């Protein structure tokens, strides 16, 4: 008895399940369920079908190349039974499995973490473009004017900035004003 793998989705086929197709060139295709079998008959490429393991590996979504995968290999020469060997092998198997799981999970998490940078970029762009929906340019104007009157002697500096639309503009350097409590909410540390 052997647990086979489905040709299409690479899932495990337990004894008594699935369909086996033998082609005229003696290649055997095993399918775990009719979904995979039907897809095969429709000549779908498993490497392009999003939900299969083959796609995930070729697209780099799952860990594909790793020394921990080389332990499980189909052997053509059976080995004679030896109790000690079998027991030790089962223990080794468990350890290998643990390591492999850890590594594949790590791979996936690394991949997902890159999304965070994307998110931050998106937030920055959004704020740059649509800040006017929540803050009017006149917000805090009165206060600024009041302070300017007090610091009139200071020369306003000019700096060159690129605004949200990508145009270069020369404006006065903004005066650094410490933010007041009401405007910005304190979120605290975010654990990501």
């Amino acid at each position, binding site marked *: 008895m052997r647990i086979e793998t489905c040709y299409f989705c690479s899932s495990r086929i337990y004894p008594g399940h699935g369909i086996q197709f033998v082609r005229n060139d003696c290649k055997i295709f095993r399918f775990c369920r009719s979904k995979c079998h039907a897809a095969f008959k429709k000549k779908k490429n498993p490497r392009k079908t999003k939900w299969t393991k083959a796609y995930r590996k070729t697209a780099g979504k799952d860990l594909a190349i790793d020394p921990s995968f080389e*332990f499980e290999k189909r052997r053509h020469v059976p080995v004679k039974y030896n109790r000690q060997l079998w027991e030790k092998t089962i223990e080794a198997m468990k350890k290998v499995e643990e390591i492999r799981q850890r590594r594949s999970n790590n791979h996936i998490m690394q991949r997902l973490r890159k999304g965070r940078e994307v998110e931050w970029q998106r937030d920055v762009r959004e704020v740059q473009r649509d*800040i006017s*929906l929540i803050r009017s340019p006149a917000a805090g104007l009165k206060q600024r004017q009041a302070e300017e009157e007090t610091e009139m002697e200071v020369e306003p500096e000019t700096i060159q900035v690129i605004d949200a639309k990508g145009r270069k503009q020369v404006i006065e350097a903004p005066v650094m004003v410490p933010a007041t409590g009401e405007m910005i909410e304190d979120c605290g540390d975010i654990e990501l």
Partner: protein
Amino acid sequence: MSLYNFKKIAVVPTAKDFIDIILSKTQRKTPTVVHKHYKITRIRAFYIRKVKFTQQNFHDRLSRIIQEFPKLDDVHPFYADLMNVLYDKDHYKLGLGQLNTARHLIDNVAKDYVRLLKYGDSLYRCKQLKRAALGRMATIMKRQAANLTYLEQVRQHLARLPSIDPYTRTIIICGFPNVGKSSFINKITRADVEVQPYAFTTKSLYVGHTDYKYLRWQVIDTPGILDHPLEERNVIEMQAVTALAHLRAAVLYFIDPSEQCGHSIEEQISLFESIKPLFSNKPLIVVLNKVDVVRPEELTEPKRQLIEELEQACAQGNVVNADSNSELRTVPVMRMSTLTDEGVQEVKIEACERLLGHRVTEKMRSKKVDGILNRLHVAVPAARDARARPPVLPPAAARRLQQRAERLARKRKLEREIELEQGDDYVLDLQKNYTEIPEEERYDPIPEFWEGHNIADYIDPDIFDKLAELEKEEELRIAGGMYAVPKIELDETMREIKDLARQIRNKKAILKDESRLTKQSTKPVMPRTSRARAKGRSASQLRDQMEKLGVDMSESETAHFTRTRSRSRSLSAPASKRARTSSASRSVSRPPRDTQGVKDVAMQRKAKNLAHVAIAKKTKKMGLKGEADRFIGTKMPKHLFAGKRGVGKTDRR
């Protein structure tokens, strides 16, 4: 006609049936209607036809019978003799001869009466003549009744005769009654001859077929023969004698030394002596049957003596007259038991071999041999020199052959034998043959799966080294912090930006929902050109909105937006009508929307171009309908598709 198969003879009907058949045939197959007033020639022809028809049929049928019965001179003398024995040649010939005469008589009767009918002058006379003719023919047949019944019986018996081919290889078994001839034939062939303890169980010849050296052999079982002179033999014995006399076959003479057949050995040997002439020029074997009852060696003195004498005589070759073939001089005496199968095959093989040898020798002597010999040629390679080159077996091949022989000789106890020995408490235990695996481990159930993995895929001699390497590497990785979850601390600005972005997204979602709701509503909509309703825009609302956007509106009581036209106008002042003329000449009309908010003509042109390009790009890319494409607003305007015509039809619109 040399038929060995007499099954195809037509049935001989009884006299009564014969007459009935022919007469009813006449009635059916000839015209039946004749009247007094017909022409006399017609009447005569009618009755002549009937007479002739009846005669014809009698003649044909009788001829057929006579022809189909075998002529004793034409068949093989064996069959002729057999039929003579069974049916008496004279009686048989007489019977057929009488049928022949009857036929002749019927023809004469018909001839006479036809001659008379030619001169019949009335219907009545013709009819009577015809009646007389048919009556006479019928009487002739009635007289043959006994003959016909005899011939029918002969025919039935003939059909049941065994089909013996007198020319092929045959073995005849003869001897006293009850010596075991039928048992022997039952043993070597598929014939199922009755075997019973009383004498004359077998009453006729039986044929069986057996195979030897890829050839078919006939084995003929005969009824037992008693020892008395030929004249006193009855029909049953005569059949056996006929077979012996006419068939060129190997003869097996059976003797029963145990005397269970009811006849002593002396009687059997004397019979043997008396029918010796029948064995001339035939390969003979004397068979001592029933050795399981008593062995010839264990017999009492006088009997044993007789047997020994017979054996000596046979060995010396004084027994059989075989001057044509010296090989036939020595007669083997074989021992056999049909009950225990001891010696049965040996007897058969010996008989077959002897007969084959005899037939070959006979063929060699005949003229046909040359034709066969001319076609045979044995090629022998010419010797190159005087050196002898015997066949050589290389040592490896010799060893291999020896090993093969040893392997065949070596006997291992089969599992089946163990099963039979142990009976009910036998348990099939295949693991006992796993001799390379130590005892304690032999009966382990071997695990195959774990968590969806095949254990067999992991079995590897180097698995432990590889695992050690892997674990080392894993430890390094863990130490290096590869698996550590990075803690991300955002600085203040990023946190600010995140929060603002969140608020913006919320606001956008709200705007989207509101716009979707307003678009979904089916309420009637005021046209654009009408002024915005005063209720929709109020100073307090403006103040709220601006506060939400973060503007400080605390000191805005006297701002401009509070002084709207409606508010600035005091309630005491009466409403003054606007001067119509002034409004008309002043032209307070709104500018068209494409010039509203646009600075100057150059800008206007630019904007127009932009708008055009935007639409054109889309239509070009997506193949949408453009301004130049035909556009039909209503496909079915009612005035064209409804109503009756004044003059003309409405089937086409």
